[in-house]
């Protein structure tokens, strides 16, 4: 990944990349998995660090980012312009996280399997959201073998049919799931419903 590409991604995220270059960058991302993953990391890390009261950072996230920064992994080219200072504020950590993606990126996204239903209780408040943002819970324990291609295709067909009766937001989410590179279908055993 060249400095020029990094700078283009930086400009794209700031909405300053010329239209003709956007097309080129998108096509490059279609071919380059590493570039795509780096781009996704930049977006998520950038939004996490910029969002006031961000809710996605895991416990110790900022500390680990700072530790990487202290190690000197900050060499990301920044495109010139009036926005330089603002962007540099989050792109430096973003670059650092890209370096340490294997450990840090996984902790950025939080997921917990559905709680046991409790009617009339446990409505999440903003304070709750802030409180749980420091918790990383484990969903992987519920995963087991992947379904066969035939089963995956059957489920994809069901989801496409279902998506027509979802809200616009719901439809987009269902479609993106269908399009995912790794179908992302985590099959769990019925014998352990508490793990659902």
């Amino acid at each position, binding site marked *: 990944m060249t400095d020029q590409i990094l700078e283009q991604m930086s400009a794209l995220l700031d909405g300053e990349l010329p239209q003709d270059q956007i097309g080129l960058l998108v096509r490059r991302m279609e*071919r380059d998995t590493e570039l795509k993953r780096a781009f996704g990391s930049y977006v998520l890390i950038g939004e996490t660090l910029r969002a006031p009261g961000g809710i996605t950072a895991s416990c110790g996230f900022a500390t680990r980012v700072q530790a990487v920064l202290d190690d000197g992994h900050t060499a990301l080219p920044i495109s010139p312009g009036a926005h330089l200072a603002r962007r540099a504020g989050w792109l430096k950590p973003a670059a650092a996280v890209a370096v340490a993606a294997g450990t840090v990126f996984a902790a950025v*996204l939080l*997921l917990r399997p559905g709680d046991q239903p409790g009617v009339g209780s446990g409505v999440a408040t903003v304070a709750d959201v802030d409180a749980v943002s420091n918790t990383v819970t484990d969903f992987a324990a519920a995963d087991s073998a992947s379904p066969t291609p035939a089963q995956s*295709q059957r489920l994809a067909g069901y989801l496409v*049919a279902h998506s027509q*009766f979802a809200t616009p937001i719901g439809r987009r989410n269902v479609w993106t799931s269908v*399009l*995912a590179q790794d179908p992302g279908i985590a*099959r769990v055993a019925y014998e352990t419903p508490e793990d659902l």
Partner: protein
Amino acid sequence: MGIARPALALSLVAALCPVAHATPEEARVWLARMSDALATREYDGLFTHSNRRQSETMRIVHRMEGTNSIERLVSLDGSGREIVRTPREVHAYLPDRRVVLVEPRTDDGSLLKALPTPGAELDAQYLLEVRGGSRLLGRNVRIIEIRPRDGYRYGYRLWLDEKSAMPLRSEICDQAGRPVERIQFTKLDMHTNMPASETEPSVDASGFRWVRSARPGSDRRVAMAVASWRALKVPPGFRLVGSRVQSLPGHPMPVQHLVFSDGFASVSVFIEPGSRNAPAPAEASRMGAASTFTTTVRGYMITAVGEVPPTTVRDIATSLAPVADSGVSPPPAR
């Protein structure tokens, strides 16, 4: 637009009287504005779709032809998968499988018309809230919180562009408010008179297997049998909003499609005669925030899918039973 005036009025009120949390009514107006914007505006955007397992970068293009919308969603991750929603069909291009799934579009169907719109009934299942003061992509946004009152449904957190009401970021959250899935736009351009070429698939599907629905009514006996199932008990707030017998791509027999909704979340249940490939025992899967549950009852395969917690699809699927006097017989041999 019918909603434009009240939305504008509420926006003005909110601007003049800034408060941390606006009323549920204002949240509903914002939801209506968002739905209208998503369905009627022309736009081209790049976004990342993330959950704990993976992160994908995708492009979405939405174009209008008169009153018909055409939508194209493209995975930029190298798999080349695309979904194109034309006025008549939905095409899911899966180059990695060399398959194109073709599903008739059902905008004019009775099921869609039966679906509830965001209304007062949402208050029984969700807490609605509006917050302001944030910026995304250089735009002022309102944050709409839709928090579930129980664990049978997910919540949503939406960052809506104050000007266009387009969602610049959305999260599906569990009951505790933890993100399950996120869509985050990195670029969103609004258009007028977008060229038709923008919604043409880029996939060269020559040599692909096109999997289309069988012709409806191809097997009347099976259609009658699968149409005789009902849910005995569903989670609080969900109700049956539609039922039909339809054909699905790759399914040689008709399938009954039931749709349950709580006013925001929806669950589809598909019932079809079982086959040798039917999963046994019952199994649950997750695909992003979508949960699925498949079980077999009296030789019929029942699959519930929806953007709800796994418990909800499991409870609905396992509550399905044949109507007592329907004379449901074991499925024909396949």
